[in-house]
């Protein structure tokens, strides 16, 4: 188990390196001079002096390998450069905003799993029944509705029509715990919805498969009560592929927070990214993209480890 975790950590570190490197490459592989691209507005050509100044500031005049090393070194030391807009170190903004985004993601994942797994299990047990068809339909519908549509409609319903929850905003937990949770509810629920659909579907398929397994029949043959068969044998085993899917869905989930933070004015990292992209504040964008990608790798690592704890066979498999 420990060896397995160590192994996964090494893989995760490798992935982080891949991410950092590919972000660097992407910048240099896109045709044209990044400085010029960044300063141009539509068809208006950029001022050559300004381009030259920006090139200097971005270190574009250095040899490529030097730039790459600086880039790597920057990531290692947490120095992600200074914002074009206000000159503040990018890392500071990231440090304050990252926890808020994480909060949304974790809350959404919790909501989605705690509803999706029972729902999918129920649908599987009652496969092809009316209830199953209804669940399947809503899952498909939820999957097909982009998160910002859900968010906007949710505001329309809960904040404007029913007036039971605030439309958006943020208060720190330390100042107003109840208000904080109220404000968190809608964004987290919105992000959770499509994930909920994925998890429900996956749980259904997974439980259906486990139900056909011989060990479920063995459990019945022992005369154990239904509830225990369901909990210990069916759901326990069905969770393993569901968790793997959760890991794969992390990308969508993080993408979802970008839109949701924008919709609900949640001052997290992802919403900040939108502003940075809008202003084409290059160091900010690169810093945030890298942070989130590393977060993505890390969350997957966590899921791998949970999975290994659930399934003793996994730690044996080494690919």
């Amino acid at each position, binding site marked *: 188990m420990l060896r397995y975790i160590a192994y996964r950590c090494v893989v995760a570190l490798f992935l982080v390196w891949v991410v950092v490197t590919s972000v660097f490459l992407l910048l240099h592989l*896109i045709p044209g001079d990044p400085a010029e691209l960044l300063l141009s507005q539509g068809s208006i050509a950029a001022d050559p002096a300004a381009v030259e100044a920006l090139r200097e500031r971005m270190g574009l005049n250095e040899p490529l390998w030097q730039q790459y090393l600086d880039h790597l070194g920057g990531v290692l030391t947490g120095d992600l450069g200074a914002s074009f807009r206000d000159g503040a170190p990018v890392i500071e903004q990231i440090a304050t905003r990252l926890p808020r985004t994480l909060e949304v993601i974790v809350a959404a994942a919790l909501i989605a799993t705690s509803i999706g797994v029972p729902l999918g299990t129920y649908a599987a047990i009652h496969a092809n*029944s009316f209830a199953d068809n209804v669940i399947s339909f809503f899952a498909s519908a939820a999957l*097909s509705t982009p998160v910002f*549509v859900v968010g906007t409609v949710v505001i329309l319903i809960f904040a404007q029509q029913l007036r039971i929850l605030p439309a958006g905003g943020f208060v720190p937990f330390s100042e107003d715990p109840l208000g904080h949770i109220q404000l968190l509810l809608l964004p987290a629920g919105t992000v959770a919805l499509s994930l909920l659909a994925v998890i429900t579907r996956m749980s259904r398929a997974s439980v259906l498969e486990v139900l056909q397994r011989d060990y479920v029949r063995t459990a019945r*043959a022992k005369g154990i009560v239904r509830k225990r068969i369901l909990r210990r044998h069916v759901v326990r085993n069905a969770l393993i592929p569901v968790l793997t899917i959760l890991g794969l869905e992390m990308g969508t989930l993080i*993408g979802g927070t970008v839109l949701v933070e924008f919709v609900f004015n949640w001052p997290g990292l992802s919403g900040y990214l939108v502003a940075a992209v809008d202003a084409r504040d290059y160091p900010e*964008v690169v810093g945030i993209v890298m942070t989130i990608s590393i977060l993505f790798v890390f969350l997957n690592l966590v899921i791998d480890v949970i999975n290994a704890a659930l399934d003793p066979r996994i730690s044996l498999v080494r690919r």
Partner: protein
Amino acid sequence: MNKAHRKLILPGVIVFFITALVFLAPILPLADVREMSIPSRFAGPSASHWLGQDEFGRDVLARLIWGGRASLFIAVGSALAAAVIGTALGLLGGFFRGVVEVLTVRASEVILCLPLLLLALLVVAILGAGTWPLIIALTILYTPNYARVVYSATLQVRSLDYVTAQTAMGAHPMQILARTVLPNIMPPLLVQMSLVIASALVIESGLSFLGLGVVPPTPSWGLMIRAARGAMEQQPLLLIWPSLALAGTIFTFNLLCDRLQSVLDPRGITGGGAFWLRKNQRKTVENERVAEPSTDALLLVEDLSIVLGREGRDTELVRGVSFKVMPGETRAIVGESGSGKTLSGLALNGLLPDVLSINGGRALFSTREGAQVDLTRLDEDAFRSLRGREVSMVFQDAAAALNPVLRIGEQVGEAIRAHKEIDDAALDERIISLLRQVGLPDPERRVRSYPHELSGGQRQRAMIAVAVANEPRLLIADEPTTALDPTIQAQILDLFKTLMADTSGMGLIFVTHDLAVVSEIADRVTVMYAGEVVEEGPVADVFERPRHPYTAALIASVPEGDADRLIAIPGTVPTPKDLPPGCRFAPRCAHAIDACTTHSPEAEHPSLDRRTRCIRWKDVT
């Protein structure tokens, strides 16, 4: 055209309709998308503006269709571009492998390490917003998906004989790729395509919504939702229309993808579920205690029949099976696969799959308390209290029958806890003594092992420990030695013999296809063929003088001594759907006469404790 194909029609037609609508937008009689009319801001639906007017008084319907045109143009365009590039990469990687694979497929997969939307934002940050940057970003995003699909399909195709043959004949690799590989990978590509279009629509509209995608005044669904957000209170309809259009279109493409997939892979459609787990399942029959005075038999099975399909047109898989098991007796049920022997065993423990059911006969079982219950009439709850305690089962493949993620100790322990209140210390003690009893080496350590840490023989021993944990009165063993190699087989058989010797009064039903095992372990044998009992009697008698041609043929096919040559019976067991008329063995029987194919032979008794289902038993044996 089967059901799966028919189901393609609906999403196919809708996709066609949407595509036609946006394609024909320039020639449709639509209002000008830019024509504003401030006085009629937020006007509701009217004859000239079917879906109403937006915050500048522009026609919503026209904007919806033109917006769809922009969205679909970007989604389909990038899906196609990614398809071309991804397919090329995948083909090259899959066909040449080695360095080429690393440079194409693996390199593109790096993109999958990053969250999609972020990557799109990164590209937009560099290139600026607009239609073309979006297409470039989405193309980059989806290329690896295609590369992956095409790569694995190519790997499969490339090992096919005719492809190898063409390579050997010196055809140019590019020719081979174009001619053989491409047509073969079309279906998975189509699935991928509809999936990518749906996903691209999500990302495109998301970016446009953020103001980082399509640039106004070009209408786009994302932009329309963005604008409607500010005016939600005056006119919620403005939000609803583009939302519906967007979600509906994505839904349709997802549906198309699902249905394409089920056409390509029909296995996915199979139903399932678990009737036994449903809460208020219909109780098919009253639970009743059979009062009639009866035999001293532990189990008396009479005329048991099992059918496939719950109602209506059933297929009979097992017909009229009768046998009995006396306390302390070992009854073997022997037959080829398809003879119904395993189903009969499962039926006695109420473990038939949902699609099968018992539709006739009875199985009287005398419980520990001396009562008699009919096993064919119990519902799940009534059976539960018997299972493990009174009737227990050992399955064929212990590797599959043990739960891979639970420790052996827990799996044995829960069997005990299911029927007995017992404290932890006593439970542990009991588990270890059970494991010792079944001959598992080092039981103190083994309780903490997972099934995959045991050998095949050890797993079967653990399985047996589970089955005998509550000292059942009847043990049903379904081919418990088949999956094991010969030396282990012998050990497990010995274990069964020891168990039978040590436990007084336990009956054993041993289901097997192996006559050698039968002669080794059983007192009496029931021979089954095509769902029927063809012969039954004491093992020694049956072996000495089989009274049915099938039994005789089975015995002849057992390798004797070192000779490992089997005299196989020609032909195969008929399937339940097309049983021959008359005697079910007739097509394979060397003694068949005309009468055999006209009447089903009845069971006859050559002697007091023998039975055979052959009209010619007197002549042929």
